[in-house]
């Protein structure tokens, strides 16, 4: 129980760090590169150059949207899926910005094995998941799925809509 908690704390720390660097336009530390909108290419060039080091710090995650279109991105260890999606302009709404107060970052883990590798959702996460649109047995909140090495190759399906549904197709931008 303690080990994953420390991982979470570490993740929070790293997240905070990256946010600060984003706003004040500091030179980002080498361990947390900002992935731009080149979805397919990202930082593969630099990672291969650095050899083993870069590979350990990023895992490959594929987002499948409701039309079946796949987007593969690299997610640094310790970053949540919600943040990774926002950085890569993937359409994952995060109305409460990862504070466990909504169900809009709902993702469906496509492989049961990967789902089992994730930690048990807390009661608070389960409460929010109960409200999610299109809930399945392998659903999780994207802001609570933190990248770790065992999840390499994770495939996440995006549900057709969220609880903040707008039938005219309006998609709120991440804030």
């Amino acid at each position: 129980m303690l080990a994953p908690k420390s991982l979470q704390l570490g993740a929070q720390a790293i997240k905070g760090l990256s946010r600060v660097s984003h706003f004040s336009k500091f030179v980002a530390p080498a361990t947390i590169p900002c992935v731009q909108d080149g979805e397919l290419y990202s930082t593969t060039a630099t990672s291969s150059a650095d050899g083993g080091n870069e590979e350990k710090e990023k895992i490959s995650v594929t987002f499948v949207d409701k039309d079946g279109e796949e987007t593969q991105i690299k997610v640094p260890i310790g970053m949540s899926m919600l943040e990774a999606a926002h950085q890569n302009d993937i359409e994952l709404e995060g109305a409460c910005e990862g504070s466990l107060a909504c169900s809009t970052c709902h993702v469906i883990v496509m492989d049961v094995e990967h789902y089992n590798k994730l930690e048990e959702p807390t009661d608070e996460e389960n409460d929010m998941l109960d409200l999610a649109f299109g809930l399945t047995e392998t659903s999780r909140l994207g802001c609570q799925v933190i990248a770790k090495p065992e999840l390499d190759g994770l495939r996440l399906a995006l549900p057709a809509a969220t609880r903040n549904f707008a039938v005219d197709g309006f998609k709120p931008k991440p804030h």
Partner: protein
Amino acid sequence: MASKIMASTVRRTLPHIRPLSTAAGISIKGVKISGRPLYLDMQATSPVDPRVLDAMLPYFISQYGNPHSRTHLYGWESDQAVEAARAQVASLIHASPKEIIFTSGATESNNISVKGVMRFYNENKKHVITTQTEHKCVLDSCRHLQQQGFDVTYLPVKPDGLIDLNELRNSIRSDTGLVSVMAVNNEIGVIQPMEEIGRICMEFGVPFHTDAAQALGKIRVDVNKWNVSLMSLSGHKVYGPKGVGALYMRRRPRIRVEPQMNGGGQERGVRSGTVATPLVVGMGAACEIAMKEMEYDAKRVVKLKDRLLNGIRTRLDGVMVNGSMERRYAGNLNLSFAYVEGESLLMGLKEVAVSTGSACTSASLEPSYVLRALGVDDDMAHTSVRFGIGRFTTEEEVDKVVELTVNQVKKLREMSPLYEMVKEGIDYKSVQWAQH
């Protein structure tokens, strides 16, 4: 002009309906009765306890806000009342308030449980186990699921109305998604072995749903001792208002359902729609009263039941009690009188409000499927009458019912050719009847 308006107003305010009761008695649907019948049909519904009505009234007239209105006092006070009622219902079944969802009744709760659970887990789980003596809403939901490709096993019951635990164990498959067994049967009053069923379900990891509409407030209901994942509750069986019920959904381990009512996500997304504050407050008050008075009510009901049964048995023979005598809720007495047809007995007992079988099956002409499941012979299945005793039943009522029943049964038996044959020693079962 003014006088014309006044005249028409006066005409409009005078009652146009012919009064129901006159000095000579009540006449309704072509039947004449000397007065309002004695109510012994507590399983069909129960009168609202005056204390419950007191709790409900303010929420109709002065505190009428929508509990989901978040911006003003009316909404906040309604929400507070709903949450207080939720806690009252939860404490009666030893659950947490977060696990209670308010619905429109036990039928809706049963629908959500059976169809909702199976549809949510339908990728891997295709099998449901239930019993043959369940309430119609559970059986109909199961039949509906069968139409959609699910498998349903309807467990038979032993002659005493209880299920065979070994049969249950043997019916569980790897793809069983739900076991649904009602706690107290509405027609015969038997109490199923809930703790043992819960243990079997826990062993196999199968969610356990129970329809506890008749059990709430009458026997001790404990969701943890019974290991239930889902429980349906009804307001109007515990001296609360009609039109409200609740669904208990376990949080650890979490059970999920596909909602049957879609909308704004009220009640944790399980049951969208404005929560009816007065009805919910009524159900909460009824549960609180039941918690305080359950023990006393139970003792009183047992005494009244003994009075009724002994009163009838000392004066009549050929009286059978349907269902187990040991594992039974005393307030439900289902009796079969040999050689007397149930419907004709009821027609003769116009001053007593009882029923044969359950209210929801009374429209069909077939004898109750619950009695058929007990293995009761066809001739006996038609003879059953269900007496329901409750919190407001008095000893005088019971004595009067005994008198009326005994007289009516004797009268009908005089007329019965079967009874004559039996008295002469002929075994009517061996007779070759001329017609069908």
